């Protein structure tokens, strides 16, 4: 399909600008634009059609089943799109005085209250724009907490298991901490003995996902809590997998001091092909003084933004956070109410059902009940037939499914990480399982068919190595002219 720049013709345009009958000031010559930017030139119908065509070359949760592990691709209710477009939300400037934003501030406050209850913690900042920014914020809170106690210089290390999302170690480095990895034991839990040997007075804290990226609830979480809190260290909960435990088990009750919540996962903000997201953090009362400014405060029936917080770490993003995300996630929570527990129960039921149906044809490295997702290994198919996790992923596309997450977590070779969420009908789960079983059969009987998939997508398998070796990161206008001449 052509790029929009290749459809451009000089002199066409898609929108008209009001032109008041006023003189246009001149810009000092040394500051004025010399060459105009080569933006596309198309009339409005062609612009709409271009992007509509692009959309038909993309797969979303509206298109079909999207069991991308750790990404919680659940249904995104359409009512939420209507609500975020209400003029009272859409047209509200973020710098109006608090009196002019009472509805927005109340919504943020109410959202924070629900997050406090679901996480079992005391205070919330909605400001972080994504889970990874929530992580960075959480680690900044660690620094501030220990600095206040005169221990920041001494506590330099953050402990993270080898199953952690890549964001955890990356956030550790960005926040100026040192990483201490710990192993996973034979049951898929954090290796408690390894952990115990690595926690001391130089440890600032732990970053843990529970259930882990293996989809397993850590059976030793209470012992882990004793180790960290006994050493005066803090515990950070990566909330990427919160969809497993809403109303079932709360991070605060597990001992975690800071939690981020991915609003674009558990609470259904559509992820838009990579964003927006939302990564609020919830904290124990002992960390509340350090939260980013401003904080939403309730005074009786009115709400205000409190900027006067001397111990705050500052601001991690402009304003109060991605407000439109808050509208959608709040609406989603209000559609469930206390039924958020049933949401998590069904997510776990769906995952276990698929696991039970797949664990014979594919290897299940940790033979336990899973939570909201599970990890299979295609190691045997690779060894016996040369068919890899990537091949299986690509072949699934021909059956009309988005593939699971592959090659993660790193502790499982040829990993296929499957997360169905609560949104799916049993028939969909069965169709996906049947496709996986069929692919396992194909791998044994006609492996080349699987290795060359997909066949029915807008493009065949793409050459990712070439994209690195010969980087083309934007349209080359000049080259295009030469090529066509």
């Amino acid at each position, binding site marked *: 399909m052509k790029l929009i720049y290749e459809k451009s013709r000089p002199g066409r345009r898609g929108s008209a600008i009001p032109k008041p009958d006023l003189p246009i000031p001149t810009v000092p010559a040394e500051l004025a634009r010399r060459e105009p930017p080569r933006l596309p030139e198309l009339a409005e119908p062609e612009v709409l059609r271009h992007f509509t065509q692009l959309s038909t070359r993309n797969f979303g949760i509206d298109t079909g089943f999207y069991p991308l592990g750790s990404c919680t691709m659940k249904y995104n209710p359409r009512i939420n799109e209507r609500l975020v477009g209400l003029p009272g*939300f859409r047209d509200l400037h973020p710098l109006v005085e608090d009196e002019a934003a009472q509805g927005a501030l109340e919504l943020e406050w109410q959202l924070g209250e629900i997050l406090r209850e679901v996480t079992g913690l005391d205070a919330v900042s909605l400001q972080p724009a994504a889970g990874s920014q929530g992580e960075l914020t959480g680690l900044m809170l660690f620094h501030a907490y220990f600095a206040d106690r005169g221990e920041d210089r001494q506590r330099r290390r953050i402990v993270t298991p080898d199953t952690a999302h890549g964001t955890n170690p990356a956030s550790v480095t960005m926040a100026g901490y040192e990483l201490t990895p710990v192993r996973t034991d034979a049951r898929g839990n954090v290796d408690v003995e390894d952990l115990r040997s690595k926690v001391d007075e130089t440890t600032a804290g732990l970053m843990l996902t529970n259930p882990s990226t293996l989809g397993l*609830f850590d059976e030793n979480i209470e012992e882990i809590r004793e180790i960290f809190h006994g050493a005066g260290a803090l515990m950070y909960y990566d909330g990427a997998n919160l969809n497993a435990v809403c109303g079932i088990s709360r991070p605060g009750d597990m001992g975690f001091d800071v939690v981020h919540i991915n609003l674009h996962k558990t609470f259904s903000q559509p992820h838009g*092909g990579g964003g927006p997201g939302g990564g609020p953090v919830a904290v124990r009362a002992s960390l509340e003084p350090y939260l980013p400014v401003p904080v939403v405060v309730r005074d009786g029936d009115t709400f205000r933004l409190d900027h006067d917080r001397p111990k705050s770490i500052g601001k991690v993003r402009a304003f109060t956070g991605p407000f439109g995300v808050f509208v959608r996630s709040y609406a989603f929570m209000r559609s*469930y109410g206390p039924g958020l527990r049933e949401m998590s129960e069904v997510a776990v039921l769906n995952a276990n059902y698929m696991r039970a149906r797949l664990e014979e044809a594919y290897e299940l490295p940790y033979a336990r009940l899973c939570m909201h997702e599970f990890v299979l290994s295609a190691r045997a198919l690779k060894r016996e037939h040369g068919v890899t996790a990537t091949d299986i992923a690509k072949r699934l*596309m021909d059956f009309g499914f988005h593939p699971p997450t592959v090659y993660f977590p790193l502790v499982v070779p040829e990993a296929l990480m499957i997360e169905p969420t609560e949104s799916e009908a049993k028939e969909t789960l069965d169709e996906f399982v049947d496709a996986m079983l069929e692919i396992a059969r194909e791998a044994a009987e006609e492996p080349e068919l699987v290795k060359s998939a997909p066949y029915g997508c807008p493009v065949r398998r793409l050459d990712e190595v070439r994209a690195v070796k010969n*980087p083309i990161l934007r349209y080359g206008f000049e080259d295009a002219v030469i090529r066509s001449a």
Partner: protein
Amino acid sequence: MSYLSLTTEDREAMLRTIGVDTVADLFRDIPPGVLFDRVLDVPPALTESELQQHLERLAARNKVDEVCFLGAGIYDHHVPAVVEAVLQRGELLTAYTPYQPELSQGVLQAIFEYQTAICELTGMDVSNASGYDGATVAGDACYVAKLATGRGRIVVTEATNPQVRQVVRTYAPGFGLEVVEVPADGGTTDPERLRAAAEDAAAVIFQQPNFFGCLEPAPSLAAAAADAGALPVAHVDPVSLGILEAPGNYGCALAIGEGQSAGNAMSFGGPHYGFLAAREDLVRRLPGRIVGETVDADGARGFVLTFQTREQHIRREKATSNITTNQTLLALAGLVHLSLLGPQGLRELGETCMALAAHTQRRLVDAGLELAFPDRPTFKEFVVRTGRPAKDALEAASAAGIRAGYPLGRDYPGFDDALLVALTEKRTVDEIERLVEALAA
């Protein structure tokens, strides 16, 4: 509840397949001590119609009916209907990050086109797929500069948006960076003063047009930074770049900015997109996603996420950033809007904003008010002294249905009577007269 499909029969059949008796049995690996033993204390579930009424009541408590002259980084520009239509395509709206390119060519091509548009606007060589907002991309730029120069200080001009400066100050300590601010002189930054501060700095961040709306001597600021061996970083408004020179054409190493003014509603501050573009030599240090062109097994053109060895899922603690989420959908809105404008539309948009801003300044002076920086050229925003506490001026204007601007004294001492006033193409000469009348009274 209408978002769940499973029937009672489904559940029973599934439990049988799993080999457990009840749903509660699925949670037997959770130690009893951390099981939640009561019902969540959250408000009751609402039906769709109840939900809509509830949210409509909340929305109605926000005051959005005033004529908006408030900017300060977020602007009341028009968002074309086509932008909303594209963003509501479910295939784009409800997709995750394009990890599987064969099913994500729509999003990947759109990001490639977006990267091209940002490079064209800014005059830079490469753009990432977007950042969280115009403030966090400044934090990202600091990290790039630290990695690229090995230096430990960031210089930011005081005339840079306070939200941006606050985010830089929050990020810097973790990066091992110290932040120094350079004061403005009469509304703009003195290049000589900046040069002195930039010695040993990793980067110099300035804003064009700056927070006061004034045009900085941007080429001289970039040259001063480069002379001192610091990376010049320009924070720019995309709407200005049909009129004002592109940062890449006056020596900047990085160009960043808030994308909201091109294609996003104000939405109480987000979600919006930040853009980050750089010189070619910095590409492997950039944070966030980058899309590249390649070919498929049949030789046909296609697009993929590339340079992923920079990223956290591969490099973990050695990554250039922890970023995974970006703002693809909002950046797509920006691309659609810029595609509707084209080069001519972008230029006219800038001209209209500038003409309205200049007219407003003349009318305010006619009415006896003083401009804070009368001899500095401006773009779409400027500072006016109201001759009374800004709060009083805002209240008087509000009584006339006008949101007159941003009280500059919130961030700058000595400006307690000053308002920062913004003009977008949506404002009319009549509305300007109402503003002048309210402020002159």
